[in-house]
């Protein structure tokens, strides 16, 4: 890993004010070749609150799933916690990001983000109900029971979402991401209601430290 760009600046009042340091690191593979890039912005808001903005992280596909993202994220989070940071913010996207950041404890940082995921959950509920109603197998088929369980889980989440974004009981991104998951299931090997809904999604996330 090598830092190849770092700069300091001041946010405009329209952007909330405060000062920041932004740096970008190049991630290298064990053979020294390029593996990806990561940009972080560390912000001191006008009231002194410290916020880390994970602006960008891209790993080449062949280097994903090998633990770099979680190790790098944990390394930085240790520094944030030791330095009194309040939170980390990011935009969850890409193939894995929509699910993985939720599974790592990030929650929705805007109402539109939660709404986008709940809309996808409602679409998934429609697909599940269609699958249930047209199921070609016997009624005691375990796969049909899984669909029925997922329908109940999706309905419960959507009912709780009626509380309104930011209100107690509103489903967290973590809760949605793990809905329908049985202990022992593994991401990338298995799929469940929450992983289907969150994988490939895009949303603004926040990790409260």
């Amino acid at each position, binding site marked *: 890993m090598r830092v190849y760009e770092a700069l300091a600046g001041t946010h405009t009042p329209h952007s909330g004010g405060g000062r920041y340091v932004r740096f970008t690191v190049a991630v290298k593979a064990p053979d020294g070749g390029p593996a990806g890039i990561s940009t972080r912005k560390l912000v001191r808001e006008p009231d002194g609150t410290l916020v880390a903005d994970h602006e960008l992280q891209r790993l080449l596909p062949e280097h994903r799933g090998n633990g770099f993202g979680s190790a790098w994220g*944990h390394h930085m989070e240790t520094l944030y916690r030791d330095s009194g940071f309040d939170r980390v913010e990011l935009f969850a996207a890409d193939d894995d990001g929509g699910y993985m950041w939720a599974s790592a*404890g990030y929650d929705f940082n805007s109402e539109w983000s939660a709404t986008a995921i709940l809309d996808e959950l409602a679409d998934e509920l429609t697909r599940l109900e269609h699958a249930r109603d047209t199921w070609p197998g016997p009624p005691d088929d375990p796969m049909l029971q899984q669909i029925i369980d997922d329908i109940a889980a999706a309905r419960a989440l959507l009912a709780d979402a009626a509380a309104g974004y*930011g209100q107690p009981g509103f489903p*967290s991104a973590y809760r949605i991401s*793990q809905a329908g998951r049985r*202990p022992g299931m*593994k991401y990338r090997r298995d799929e469940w209601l929450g992983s289907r809904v969150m994988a490939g999604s895009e949303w603004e996330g926040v990790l409260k430290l």
Partner: protein
Amino acid sequence: MSTDEQRRALSRLVFQWRTAHPDGPDDPGDDPEFLRQARILQGLDPETGARLTP
């Protein structure tokens, strides 16, 4: 527990798990014990993830 307190409690749980499992899977939920603890923390059934409290 407020929403913010619940968010911080979950992030601490993930952080502590990652500290204890530096070579663990990317997804902490791959560890069944972590999944159970995280669900309990959120007031959910540890096996199914269904909400327990009204």
